């Protein structure tokens, strides 16, 4: 039986959503300072207005719903899904004030794309936006990769009993430490250490490529944030193609491969369990699917004679494929090259790679290597059962941090989520086809949005139909939060209306 919704439920949800919103407001101070440093006064003013508005909304929300009660599982799920929506809307304010978007919907599309680490964008004249706005775009994706709730947990919420549940609602279900705040701090520590290393490495490469030193390190930070969070944004509209640098591409590839790893795996490897990287089912599954789909890409590109030598085939083909598989979306070819040169087989292989995606509890999207590994092991166990004598007891195992027994419920849980992902991929593709896009293009773009990848074959642009923009935004949101918290939010809204009707009838 579904329970009724009471005023206290709204208080708990409002209070914690308010705290997350305050976190978003404080985060906006970074692009504001960036604008001040670069003497972009108009942009700084845009951010000052946005900071004031976001802090006001967050503070009022937290104040009017102030409570000492701890969130339960339902609250936690609603807070996680709702916070992302509130953050999306308020983070779009600087975009609108900058005048670089055609509508508020386009601004929300870009912020949803940023937070969910997708990387699609509808921003106009990207090559001439302020450094402040560029910093904001990349910061959105960097914070989105770790999780907005994780950010708020680190600095604002603390170790309440329900905090871990909110984090689970955001798709970070690995319990690395008993204290939830320690988990959040740990995730941030790993990300910040890599941010330092990545900014220096990519900054030096940018400098070697002739970019002015003070700008080179900004570019380094932007590209690192985009790579590590498997986001896909870049400061210029040509994305990685702008740099014409294989060193930059290889360094970025290393960072987005690392960003696609489970935070629990980073923790295990960083605390001495280095063999885990070779044994973990997610990494084994990832390696096999990467090499298989890349072989398909090679086959497609060789058949069509697209690239003249092995180096070029590797540089373009593997970069695009691994960018898709890790759900990053950085690109070193033009969007229409997929359709004009790669052809259906190359696009299909990339679509499969995007659909599978990165690791669970990572910055990446897709239905994840862990689920892929579990389902394949489940099928293998079933085949072994069929081939064994009837009285034999056959159990499957998989290695994820430690040896786990493969139960039917684990396989079923993984299969349900995979089916839901496939469902959103298909819905997005069907809507695309309704608007007249070819099937291959519609599937490619829909999978790219639903798996939070961001590679585009040219469908995503400001002039595309409004409904398609909304469908892609929903795909990004659901794909990132892995459905449960979004469904709980919808269920909570429906139950709230029903509870109101019951109360009115009683009066």
């Amino acid at each position: 039986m579904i329970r009724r919704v009471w005023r206290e439920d709204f208080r708990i949800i409002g209070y914690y959503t308010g705290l997350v919103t305050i976190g978003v407001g404080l985060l906006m101070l970074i692009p504001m300072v960036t604008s001040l440093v670069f003497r972009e006064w108009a942009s700084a003013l845009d951010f000052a207005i946005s900071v004031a508005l976001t802090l006001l909304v967050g503070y009022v929300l937290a104040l009017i719903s102030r409570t000492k009660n701890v969130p339960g599982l339902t609250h936690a799920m609603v807070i996680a899904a709702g916070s992302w929506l509130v953050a999306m809307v308020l983070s779009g304010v600087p975009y609108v004030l900058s005048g670089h978007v055609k509508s508020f919907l386009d601004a929300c599309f870009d912020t949803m794309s940023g937070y969910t680490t997708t990387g699609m964008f509808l921003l106009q004249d990207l090559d001439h936006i302020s450094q402040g706005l560029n910093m904001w775009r990349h910061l959105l994706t960097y914070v989105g990769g770790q999780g907005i709730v994780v950010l708020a947990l680190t600095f604002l919420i603390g170790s309440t009993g329900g905090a871990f549940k909110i984090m689970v609602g955001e798709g970070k279900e690995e319990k690395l430490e008993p204290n939830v705040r320690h988990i959040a701090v740990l995730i941030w520590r790993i990300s910040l250490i890599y941010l330092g290393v990545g900014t220096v490495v990519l900054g030096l490469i940018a400098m070697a490529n002739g970019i002015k030193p003070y700008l080179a390190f900004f570019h380094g930070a932007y590209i690192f944030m985009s790579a590590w969070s498997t986001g896909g944004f870049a400061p210029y509209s040509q994305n990685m193609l702008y740099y014409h640098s294989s060193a930059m591409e290889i360094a970025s590839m290393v960072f987005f491969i690392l960003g696609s790893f489970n935070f629990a795996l980073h923790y295990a490897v960083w605390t001495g369990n280095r063999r885990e990287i070779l044994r973990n089912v997610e990494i084994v599954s990832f390696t096999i699917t990467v090499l298989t789909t890349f072989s398909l890409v090679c086959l497609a590109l060789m058949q069509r004679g697209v690239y003249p030598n092995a180096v070029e085939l590797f540089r373009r083909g593997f970069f695009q494929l691994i960018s898709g598989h890790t759900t990053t979306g950085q690109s070193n070819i033009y969007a229409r090259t997929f359709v004009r040169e790669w052809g259906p087989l190359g696009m299909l292989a990339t679509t499969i790679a995007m659909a599978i995606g990165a690791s669970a509890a990572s910055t990446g999207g897709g239905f994840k290597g862990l689920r892929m590994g579990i389902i394949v092991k489940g099928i293998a166990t079933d085949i072994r059962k069929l081939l064994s004598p009837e009285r034999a007891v056959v159990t499957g195992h998989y290695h994820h941090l430690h040896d786990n027994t493969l139960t039917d419920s684990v396989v079923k849980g993984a299969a349900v989520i995979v089916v839901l992902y496939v469902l959103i991929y298909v819905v997005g593709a069907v809507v695309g086809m309704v608007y007249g896009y070819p099937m291959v293009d519609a599937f490619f773009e829909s999978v790219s949005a639903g798996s939070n990848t961001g590679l585009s074959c040219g469908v995503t642009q400001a002039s595309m139909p409004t409904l398609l923009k909304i469908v892609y935004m929903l795909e990004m949101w659901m794909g990132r939060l892995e459905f449960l918290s979004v469904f709980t939010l919808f269920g909570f809204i429906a139950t709230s209306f029903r509870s109101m009707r019951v109360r009115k009838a009683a009066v």
Partner: protein
Amino acid sequence: MDERSRTKRMTSLRRGLLGMLTEVAFAGGLIGVAFLISWLFFAGR
């Protein structure tokens, strides 16, 4: 900071650094294998 906690901190730092290098080596290895695949495709055409 006493000797014991300093040793503990150094061990943790060393493990962290080695962990990071392991991860980078894995990513580098994967990229290397991918290069080999593209080279094999060209060699075998």
